[in-house]
């Protein structure tokens, strides 16, 4: 029982004057007798305790005390929560990747059917995953609901915001029940939290070729989200063979693993974790070198730092003709290259080098290509004054001089570094391969991505197709399960890795204290009318007793 106005209990202080008036009043009862002289000489009895108590018992005082207490109770507006069968109920079933753990589907269905059984309907159900979907629309047919619920299945995709799932229904529902394993951030809905099973997994997997081009380095992060030490066996499979590593990971810890994989040419890699657990999707990770291999034609001087940065970003190899990318270093091109081109201290028609100059303070335009760079670490000695083509987008300035700009021409996209890399510290900084990789992403926009997540749409250029179990897919493909998929391109087959994002399963379920309180399928029953009736009844009884006693 709760009180809407608990301060009203102060009215019980009114008992004080009631008691004062009672004790100020005469205590003995008068009993008229016909002949008092007959009572003369009668020795008074020694009253027993019960009789004393009875003699001191005053019904009027009891009624007054009761009336004051009931009055205070009524004014405090007591309420009692009572369970009422819920009415219209919208079930939001979390179908994100984390729900794909073994046994979770059965738990979700059991909870959902319980809720259906405890409510009067109508019901509707929404699958809360990317993209959200309506499992069944509003219906009052309980049997139909129970059978439709069996169609529930997790999707291995992340989940969107809750309101996006609720937007599938035209009108808001009075009761929304979310069944999920991650109740964090849910508000305005009743939450049924299902505990996650303990999990181990690979949180990150990446492979890069070594600068010398004779081996690969695989980087993994493994996590032990259990309450015990785990001896994790990691196996990386490439075209060159299998490679093993082992780590004893403490509970709740995440560790890095680096494996060196011999082999000159490899495109796809698989990392597996042993032993597996109830959520197998994060025990296997796939990786494909992005876009497959990039044919490169090198013009001008050699620059091993730039080559290494290119190799870190893409799997590049050199060709003499028909390349995917031109790279020009410290040279002047007599004509514009017929394709994407990266100019480093090089000029071309429309972007000629005009001379050298001292570098001023570095400044940058806000651009996604410069993300994750720390420009303050850059040390630049001299730069070139270079002609900026019309419509070019300048990313970096050294004082007033543009030193990095991008433009598009009929031949393809171009990027120009107006500086001599050997007179800067840029090749020695971690920013360098990041910047080169970002620039390559802009220069080669139609290069298929190498790694996507389940549910992420993949736009396929003309002539590209993906081979799936259901056949070849063109234009747009949304992968529904992880794995390595073959992409047919005009230049030959490439590979695409699809993974379940760790973010959808990785974060630990929040503590119970953080779980939002469920909107109860309960209702408050106001008790104050009853208390008021009781108060008035006692007041009436008190008046009657008062009158009966003769005022």
């Amino acid at each position, binding site marked *: 029982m709760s009180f809407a106005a608990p301060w009203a209990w102060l009215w019980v202080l009114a008992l004080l004057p009631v008691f004062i008036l009672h004790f100020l009043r005469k205590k003995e009862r008068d009993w008229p*007798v*016909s*002949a008092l*002289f*007959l009572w003369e*000489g009668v020795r*008074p*009895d020694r*009253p027993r305790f019960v009789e004393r108590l009875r003699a001191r018992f005053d019904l009027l005082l009891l009624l007054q005390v009761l009336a004051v207490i009931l009055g205070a109770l009524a004014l405090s507006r007591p309420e009692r929560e009572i369970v009422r069968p819920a009415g219209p109920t919208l079930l939001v079933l979390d179908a994100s990747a984390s729900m794909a753990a073994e046994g979770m589907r059965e738990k979700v269905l059991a909870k959902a059917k319980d809720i259906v059984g405890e409510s009067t309907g109508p019901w509707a159900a929404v699958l809360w995953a990317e993209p959200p979907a309506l499992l069944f629309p509003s219906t009052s047919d309980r049997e139909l609901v129970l059978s439709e619920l069996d169609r529930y299945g997790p999707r291995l995709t992340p989940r969107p915001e809750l309101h996006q799932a609720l937007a599938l229904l035209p009108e808001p529902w009075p009761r929304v029940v979310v069944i999920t394993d991650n109740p964090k951030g849910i508000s305005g809905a009743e939450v049924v939290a299902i505990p996650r099973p303990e999990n181990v997994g690979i949180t990150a997997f990446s492979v890069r070729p070594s600068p010398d081009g004779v081996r690969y380095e695989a980087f993994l992060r493994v996590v032990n989200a259990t309450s015990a030490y785990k001896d994790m066996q990691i196996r990386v499979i490439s075209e060159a063979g299998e490679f093993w590593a082992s780590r004893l990971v403490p509970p709740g810890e995440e560790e890095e693993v680096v494996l060196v994989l011999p082999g000159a040419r490899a495109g796809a890699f698989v990392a597996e974790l042993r032993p597996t657990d109830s959520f197998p999707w994060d025990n296997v990770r796939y990786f494909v070198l992005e876009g497959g291999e990039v044919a490169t034609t090198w013009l001008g001087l050699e620059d091993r730092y730039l080559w290494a940065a290119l190799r870190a970003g893409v799997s590049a190899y050199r060709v003499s003709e028909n390349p995917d990318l031109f790279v020009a270093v410290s040279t002047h091109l007599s004509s514009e290259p017929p394709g994407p081109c990266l100019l480093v201290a090089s000029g071309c028609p429309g972007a000629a080098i005009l001379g050298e100059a001292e570098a001023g303070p570095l400044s940058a335009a806000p651009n996604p290509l410069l993300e994750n760079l720390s420009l303050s670490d850059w040390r630049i000695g001299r730069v070139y004054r270079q002609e900026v083509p019309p419509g070019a987008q300048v990313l970096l300035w050294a004082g007033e001089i543009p030193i990095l700009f991008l433009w598009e021409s009929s031949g393809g996209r171009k990027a120009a570094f107006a500086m001599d890399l050997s007179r800067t510290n840029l090749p020695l900084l971690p920013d360098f391969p990041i910047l080169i990789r970002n620039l390559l992403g802009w220069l080669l926009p139609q290069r298929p991505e190498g790694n996507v997540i389940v549910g992420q749409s993949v736009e396929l250029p003309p002539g590209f197709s993906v081979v799936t179990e259901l056949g070849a897919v063109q234009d747009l493909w949304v992968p529904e399960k992880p794995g390595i998929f073959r992409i047919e391109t005009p230049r030959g087959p490439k590979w695409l890795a699809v993974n379940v994002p760790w973010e959808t399963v990785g974060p630990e379920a929040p503590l119970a204290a953080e779980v939002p309180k469920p909107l109860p399928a309960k209702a408050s029953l106001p008790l104050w009318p009853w208390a008021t009736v009781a108060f008035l009844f006692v007041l009436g009884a008190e008046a009657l007793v008062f009158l009966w006693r003769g005022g």
Partner: protein
Amino acid sequence: MGRAPGGFADSAQALELLSAEELWALSRTRLSLRRARSLAPGEHLSFRAGASLEFADHRPYQPGDDLRLIDWAVYARHKKLVTKVFSREVEAPVYLLLDCSASMGLGGKFLFARKLAAALLFLAFRSGDRFGIYPFSVSVVGLGRPRRGRPALVRAFQEIAKLSPKGRTDLAQALSSWAERGWEPGLCLVLSDFFAPDFREGLLALRYGRHIVAAVQILAPEDLSPPVLGEVRLVDAEEGRGRPAVVGPAACRAYQENLRRWNQELAKTCEELGISQFLFVSDSSPVAAAFILARRWRP
């Protein structure tokens, strides 16, 4: 059931004294005593010799006696002339002295006394006697002469209906002052709880007036057996004074012993004075009490 005789039933009922059934039942009874000291002829047998048919005694013949009264059978056996003496039937007024003190108001005693008085007056009326009602507390209130007949009965009923218990009792003063008025000797009924220390003087004064007296004591059930009250303040209904007491079983028993002694004293006094004593409890039927009085009251 027929209509109550006398034609005044409406008055009795309207005054809530007696119901039609009670009046009907009472109409079949007479209030008659075997002895009275009045000289007027009536239904009551007087101690005096008279001309009734009831034989009373023999006495030696004296010149002048009616020769018809000589008992010739005695003369034949004893050779002595004796004359037969017959009882004389006389009329005796009925005086009802009703205690109206405050103590009578407890436990329904006064209601019982009013009804009993009404029933007795009705019996007197049915016997053709004169009757009068004389309420008293410290002194007697009404001092009208006894009358007979229906109008007198209605007036008496109306007077009874107006009465209410109040004041204190002074039996000695009230009864003495009434007796000093020199009423014609008759049947005198004192309806009271007799909770007055000087009742002997009052009853004695009535006897001095040559009345045939009945002391009708009316007590309430709580007078006879008071409840266990615990801690109370006992208040005298007449005097208003009180005293704190713890009324438990032992105190009740002590009180009942006091009451028994008091009633013994009253009975002893009545016996000494030749007064009939009756005790009625207020939760019984007043009409039944009237029947008892009519049948058992023998001087």
